[in-house]
């Protein structure tokens, strides 16, 4: 038997998850830091197409899933912008479009390894309403688990699914123990354009009312499944004074920061959204609505993209003050979060 404990890069973990999900095809265009997914997939002997740009990758992916193939793409930054064209078609036609978005710095070509600046783009890009699932894993084992889940949720519920990560996590080589993840059953793909009957399947409508009906149907479905999909980690939140909110690998640093802060006598807790879309609103409201919570500190490697989502979705009656730690395009280490929160001087009992 293969040893379940392995030392792998994030890209290797993703490729393995895609293979284990039963994906048969990848469409992609080279871009750092997502290129190793394309080369890793090719090296594993799987079918692929290197397209002329990300737009083509996105639409070829739409075509493949219409044909019934479990397929995916991987991109980053400027490529993620172009990918929104195909994603918009996928959203309009409810296609199981699976993509990994490895955030790099922006705007423009920015930097090539890390940021958390593609949150709004990934959640709400395109000319639609953001009806897509967005998962933000914080470590290699979550990257594996939520990639598997993204394929399943996309094909089960028929919404696009995005694994939102970054080059730090994809390039990081770390220890992952597959035995601890356990078995995950795959949802089978099906031919969306049938083989034995005829469909005429529009994505453009003559009348506003027709489009409205389509969006309303999708919205109702999205809300119905939101409870099943929405996921988060809450850590030391019971009666916390300070609630940290962070996602992805910053969420991992924030978790460590909670331990450090508690050692200093600061009563901190963490709400870490695992799905950014849909957000685990009920859980957030329950935690943030505790009387003990005096401050909600949103920590992120962007100028407030996560904060926008949190403020938008949190129950309006929650009156804890917001504070923001924002390093656009920069990594955020545990020590920096500890210093920032300690600097707020809202030590337990002093408020």
């Amino acid at each position: 038997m293969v040893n379940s404990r392995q030392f792998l890069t994030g890209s290797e973990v993703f490729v393995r998850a895609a293979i284990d999900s039963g994906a048969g095809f990848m469409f992609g265009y080279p871009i750092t830091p997502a290129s190793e997914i394309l080369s890793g997939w090719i090296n594993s002997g799987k079918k692929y197409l290197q397209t002329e740009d990300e737009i083509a990758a996105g639409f070829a992916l739409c075509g493949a899933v219409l044909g019934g193939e479990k397929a995916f793409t991987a991109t980053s930054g400027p490529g993620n912008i172009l990918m929104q064209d195909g994603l918009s078609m996928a959203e309009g036609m409810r296609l199981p479009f699976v993509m990994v978005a490895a955030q790099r710095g922006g705007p423009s070509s920015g930097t090539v390894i890390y940021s958390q600046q593609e949150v709004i783009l990934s959640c709400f890009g395109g000319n639609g309403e953001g009806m897509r699932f967005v998962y933000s894993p914080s470590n290699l084992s979550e990257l594996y688990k939520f990639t598997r889940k993204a394929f399943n949720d996309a094909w089960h519920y028929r919404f696009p699914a995005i694994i939102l990560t970054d080059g730090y996590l994809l390039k990081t080589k770390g220890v992952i123990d597959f035995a601890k993840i356990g078995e995950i059953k795959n949802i089978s793909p099906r031919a969306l354009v049938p083989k034995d009957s005829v469909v005429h399947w529009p994505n453009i409508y003559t009348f506003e009312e027709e489009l409205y009906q389509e969006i309303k149907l999708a919205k109702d479905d999205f809300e119905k499944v939101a409870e099943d999909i929405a996921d988060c980690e809450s850590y030391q939140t019971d009666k916390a004074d300070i609630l940290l909110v962070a996602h992805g690998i910053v969420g991992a640093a924030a978790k460590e920061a909670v331990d450090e802060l508690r050692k200093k006598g600061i009563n901190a807790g963490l709400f870490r959204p695992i799905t950014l879309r849909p957000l685990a609103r009920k859980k957030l409201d329950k935690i943030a609505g505790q009387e003990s919570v005096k401050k909600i500190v949103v920590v992120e490697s962007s100028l407030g993209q996560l904060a926008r989502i949190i403020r938008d979705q949190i129950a309006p009656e929650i009156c804890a003050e917001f504070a923001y730690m924002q390093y656009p395009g920069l990594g955020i280490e545990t020590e920096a979060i500890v210093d920032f929160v300690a600097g707020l001087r809202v030590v337990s009992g002093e408020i």
Partner: protein
Amino acid sequence: MLIKILIAGDGGQGVQTISDIICQAAFENGFFVNHIPNYGLEQRGGVSLSYITIGDKEITYPKFSMPDILVVLSKQADNRTKQYQKESVKMLNIEDYKKDLEKQSVKPQNYNIFFLGLLAKILVEKKICGEDCVLKLLEKKFGKKENWEEKKNVFELSLNYV
């Protein structure tokens, strides 16, 4: 136990090669290991950084703001890592060894192997990995290359370096 190592050198000097070996050796010895490479846009010539964390429990965040050990392989890398050069950080800097290495006729392309040995010595003392394991991994990487004996000699020289 948690030990943070930052290795810095010029692109092409083999920073990632020795990082891979150190990490693999610690992994094989049952430790949690995290390695994140960081380099610029250039395929060659820029500064190549390697952040390594080794611990006896799961590592949550792959980067750190201050290493315990800093390995510097070039002048350029020395400049790039000034922010980490604090008293609390154990430094292994090419500047301190260069004369000796020249005297012993160690070729610049093997400087990374020399530092691999110095690092291995520290990690062996801390029981993070075994000397044999590092040598085995080094041989796996270079054993079939023409200059293997040369590399092996440099490695042994560094292990016994005082």
